[in-house]
């Protein structure tokens, strides 16, 4: 019914809202986002979050063969480290030649399959908070060689060089769980506003029709950033320079729809890091179209296999009782199963019943349990393949319920409610050991966190390591 096209003339990006709720603005909607030479993305959908240009544990051949993922989130800070002896070097990624198989530098450098849509942002998701903070002309980023300053100018020039499909302009974010005070929040809005103005003036005079800008919407209240958001709607929407919104807090969407209806047709990418599928569903009902989902990586590293479906299995239909543990006993089912638990040691079952992913069709729980217990890297690879498959199926289920909603309004909402009841509110923690954490992923704050993993080696005559103390509590 509501169909909106963006940038039809340039052909760079096309977003159609196939079905939106009649009541208007902030509600779940069905759409399709398409970029030239990429697989179209049916929305709502998600993209994987890369680390240093790779979906963790997945080589590009496994990505093409075993993942349905149509998008990848990349962070510039993963590519611009300055090794001490070569501090003056140009980041190699800027010089990557493109090929027929990889038509952007970003694809070419990372060997990411060409069909996958790329999003480039300055910072990883989630980002490590910087002790230095941002300045009026730069953001502080965290590379594998430490914190460094990334000027908004350098970031823009990187975007022009790397030509991601979607670029997120720099945003003045604190990357801290603490809500900024109103003075800081106001400065966040002002700086981001200035940076976005610079961004569009610089990007407009260059020949980069391929780059679609998704402007950041800050995680501060609408009243603080209304000037900035109005500017987006008034100055950059009519010129088609603005292609979408990068949402850091989905709860702003109702305000946005109410006060800035002009922005409603734009695709909305959530960078709000929803911690569970319950949060995803909530954000979908607020109108998010596309998600970057860091939790998939964390879940796989924790030795967990996602085990939910959307819509949730109907308990009344006894003929198709699933094998999942507690569906009959009445309690909510777990969102993921912990493959490190000894219960799986001899289980020849797939990770979840009916899953068609490579891990489930070619392997079984006993193998993945063994791999995790032996700390073999393949365990995390297979879990990644499975967990991406579950997320793809989850979003396919969401879209199918939304499509049915055309006939029966409320179908989707009903399924969301049942999902909330059918599954536990949080993921299990995962008792297994994680892969070794790297410096660019994690920064000790004040020290004393303890070790998550047992040391691999110790002195022969040393006493048995106090194994349990090795892990971080919390």
């Amino acid at each position, binding site marked *: 019914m509501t169909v909106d096209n963006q940038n039809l003339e340039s052909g760079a990006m096309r977003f159609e809202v196939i079905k939106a709720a009649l009541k208007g603005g902030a509600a779940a909607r069905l759409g399709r986002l398409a970029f030239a030479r990429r697989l179209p993305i049916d929305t709502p959908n998600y993209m994987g979050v890369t*680390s*240093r*240009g*790779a979906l*963790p*544990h*997945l*080589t*590009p*051949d*496994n990505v093409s063969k075993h993942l349905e993922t149509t998008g990848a989130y990349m962070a510039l800070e993963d*590519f611009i480290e300055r*090794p001490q*002896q*070569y501090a003056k*070097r*140009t980041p*190699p*990624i800027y*010089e*990557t*030649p493109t*090929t*027929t*198989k*990889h038509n952007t530098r970003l694809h*070419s*450098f*990372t*060997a990411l399959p060409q069909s996958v849509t790329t999003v480039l942002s300055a910072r990883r998701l989630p980002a490590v908070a910087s002790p230095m903070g941002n300045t009026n002309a730069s953001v502080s980023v965290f590379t*594998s060689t430490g914190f460094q300053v990334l000027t908004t100018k350098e970031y823009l020039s990187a975007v022009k060089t790397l030509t991601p499909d979607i670029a997120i302009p720099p945003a003045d974010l604190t990357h801290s769980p603490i809500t900024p005070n109103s003075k800081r929040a106001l400065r966040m809005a002002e700086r981001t506003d200035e940076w976005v103005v610079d961004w569009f003036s610089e990007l407009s005079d260059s020949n980069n029709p391929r780059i679609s800008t998704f402007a950041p919407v800050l995680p501060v209240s609408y009243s603080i950033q209304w000037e900035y958001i109005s500017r987006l709607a008034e100055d950059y929407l009519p010129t088609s320079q603005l292609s979408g919104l990068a949402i850091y807090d989905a709860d702003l969407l109702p305000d946005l729809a109410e006060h800035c209806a002009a922005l409603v047709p734009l695709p909305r990418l959530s960078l709000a890091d929803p911690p569970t599928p319950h949060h995803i569903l909530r954000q979908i009902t607020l109108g998010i179209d596309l998600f970057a989902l860091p939790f998939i990586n964390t879940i796989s590293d924790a030795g967990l296999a996602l085990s939910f479906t959307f819509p949730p299995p109907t308990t009344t239909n006894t003929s198709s009782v699933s094998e999942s543990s507690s569906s009959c006993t009445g309690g909510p089912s777990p969102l993921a199963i912990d493959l490190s638990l000894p219960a799986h*040691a*001899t289980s*020849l079952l797939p990770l979840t019943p009916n899953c068609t992913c*490579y891990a489930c069709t*070619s*392997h*079984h729980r*006993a*193998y993945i*349990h*063994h*791999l995790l*217990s*032996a700390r*073999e*890297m*393949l*365990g*995390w*690879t*297979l879990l990644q393949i499975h967990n991406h498959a579950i997320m793809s199926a989850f979003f396919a289920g969401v879209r199918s319920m939304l499509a049915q909603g055309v006939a029966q309004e409320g179908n989707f909402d009903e399924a969301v409610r049942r999902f909330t009841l059918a599954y536990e509110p949080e993921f299990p923690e995962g008792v297994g050991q994680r*892969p070794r954490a*790297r410096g*660019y992923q994690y920064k000790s704050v004040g020290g004393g966190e303890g070790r998550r993993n047992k040391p691999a080696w110790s002195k*022969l005559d040393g006493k*048995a390591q106090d194994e349990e103390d090795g892990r971080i509590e919390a």
Partner: protein
Amino acid sequence: MASNRTFTSPALTFELVARCPVTRARASILTLPHGAVNLPIFMPVATQASLKGLTPEQLEATGCRLCLNNTYHLGLKPGQEVLDAVGGAHKLQGWNHNILTDSGGFQMVSLLKLANITEEGVRFLSPHDGSPMLLTPEHSMSLQNSIGSDIMMQLDDVLVTTSPDKARMREAMERSVRWLDRCIAAHKNPDTQNLFCIIQGGLDLDMRRECCREMLARNTPGIAIGGLSGGEAKDDFCKVVAACTELLPDLKPRYVMGIGYPEDLVVSVALGADMFDCVWPTRTARFGNAITKHGMLNMKREMYAADFGPIEEGCGCPCCRPTEEEGAMGITRAFVHHNAAKETVAAHLLTLHNVWYQLDLMRQARQAIIEDRFPAFVKGFFGNLYPDRNSYPTWAVDALRGVGIDLIQT
């Protein structure tokens, strides 16, 4: 049972396809319970039932049809009970091709401080809880029967070859023979699993020959030369291999254990060996090293940071093959450099490349033997690896001269 070109035993068929008229190199087909493999062959080591981050599907795509598992490791994790419950190592790892397992004996060398060897078996402390454990020939067979490997190795008394203690060396050799008898007696599935003997005797060629005769009398379907690659000089290694292959029957596979450097493989093939295994190609991959025909490249070096060529020009592995070809990933040295020692993906990519390189080297050697140009292949191989003939390693020149190839003369 044995025809001119073919040897058959209950769980194995060995067919000699071609021999190099100059050297002792042979090309053959070894048919095992999980399919045929072409010899000479390099067998990658999937120590804990996983080839270091590669999916069985990726390993299969490199052309690998026979890989190793380690009995010692699988005995600890997942343990014999789990292996029995799951139905063996093939089922555990979803690998429908062949598996070879060692006996757990090699870990005696690496864990010698912990191990105490008696006639009964090897006593050692469990690395899990420090409790004393005993590995006997019977227990090793029982474990390997539970694993269900297509080729099992006897438990042998392994001693570092450089050990100066002659009496201990003789004891180890003779004990290995006695243990083979116990292994044969304890082996429950001789119709579906092959048990190979292991020739010991250190660097003493007479002791090796004596061991060969004793072992051959037991008529196992295949023969391994063990105890090498423990730090001995390369020319000593070559002498041992040459002394053994001279005595071994033509129609049985010959496996030199623990060999993996490309030069060692090529020279050993020339000396008449057929099968090799080593963790080095996959281990060095995790350290950021790529094996190429021009030697090893450390991808972590800054010189590769902006090198947008493939890991090895002309290589056919999924990382390197030209991007137009099916299944090509278009991996650059720069990307491997970018993630080496940072993301596991870089290790996986180099593992894929290195395993491909090793398997392909043996494929090329085999093809050369069949096409009667093996000496030229060997010369070409060393020509690629070294800048000039003066830098060829003496041990290789000498060993190859012994089988009719003169690397220095054209």
